[in-house]
């Protein structure tokens, strides 16, 4: 069996195709910032998660530190329990504040972490004690109208 020009073409075709996949994964997608390093799991309860979705980002000071892995309703407390996987490189104090924030006015929702001053760090499986739920636009507008009505 000898090599032919045909093999060269098909080989180039396969390489280009796989190359395109790699570009999609690294340059276009977020594989370079996700799944690469080891991670640990943290949890948080929110009274309302708003539009938060699994795979939403977890950020601290705007830096991507992890992703939301699941959102379920905890029927003991009737609150949403959000599980997230956090990059092992980043450790957070026990009194870190977890907020659901929105990027821009109508953008995607993500979890923002505001580190506290505690010396003890959160370990895998721990929970954020201090959380703030998503801002629901309807509530905000409602509040605005009641406050203007009160002022009159």
């Amino acid at each position: 069996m000898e090599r032919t020009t045909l093999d060269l073409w098909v080989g180039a075709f396969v390489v280009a195709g796989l190359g395109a996949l790699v570009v999609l994964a690294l340059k276009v997608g977020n594989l370079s910032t996700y799944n690469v390093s080891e991670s640990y799991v943290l949890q948080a309860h929110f009274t309302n998660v708003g539009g938060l979705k699994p795979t939403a980002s977890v950020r601290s000071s705007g830096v991507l530190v992890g992703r939301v892995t699941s959102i379920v309703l905890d029927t003991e407390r009737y609150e949403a329990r959000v599980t997230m996987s956090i990059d092992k490189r980043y450790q957070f104090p026990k009194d870190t504040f977890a907020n659901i924030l929105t990027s821009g006015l109508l953008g995607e929702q993500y979890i923002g972490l505001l580190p506290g001053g505690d010396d003890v760090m959160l370990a895998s499986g721990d929970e954020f004690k201090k959380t703030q739920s998503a801002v629901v636009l309807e509530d905000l507008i409602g509040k605005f109208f009641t406050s203007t009505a009160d002022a009159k």
Partner: protein
Amino acid sequence: MPIVKSLRVIGNRTVNAVWRTGYATRFFVMTLFYSGPSFKRFRLIVKEMFSSGVMSLIIILVAGMFVGMVLGLQGYETLKRYGSESALGSLVALSLVRELGPVLAALLFASRAGSAMTAEIGLMKATEQIAAMEMMAVNPIARVVAPRFWAGVISMPLLAAMFSAMGVFGGYVVGVVIIGVDEGSFWSQMQASVDFQHDVLNGVIKSFVFGLAVTAIALFEGYDAPPTAEGVSGATTRTVVQSSLAILMLDFILTAFMFQGA
């Protein structure tokens, strides 16, 4: 009795359609069953990948480039109204990776490679090459159909990935180079919104399924074509029509499964 006559015609058509569906299913199963030899002699698949994959490269790359450029232009015009031009990258990339890449690449593949496959096999049948192979104790499904099938199934995801990558590049050229959207936010917004597993891998799965459907339809139509000139040209047309419909229907079903509630 015109009513009885038309009822009979409708009945015959229905029976024929069911018959053909069964025959097509059996053909598909046979193709899978006799796929062993083509993997043992992978050269057969490589040869067919040249005629289906490599020969479709140019049209895929050019089309991908232009689709990306159009997306960049249209997306910019729309996003500008909401003052979120920086989201152009994620708009271009998401629409390409999730939908346009797999679907358009598959549609182009159906009309470029699928129709060629049908015509080739139909002509082989019309000129008794298939019968000759059978008389030489060589199973034409194993020797002719299976290598083409796998070549198509392997080529399709690669072509779709190239289409998407080329489209992103086209969007970049229009958005960043020509219009002047900030390059940093173009890429970072894109990376923040495109998820590897959720978007890129699902796109690959889609194009794999489309490749399966297109080649299966093309090969069956060719193999089932009446061995005449009209028969082959009719089969070629049916390949393009049926595979285009199949792609769009499958796309709806797959999208419903993949992106539900997420």
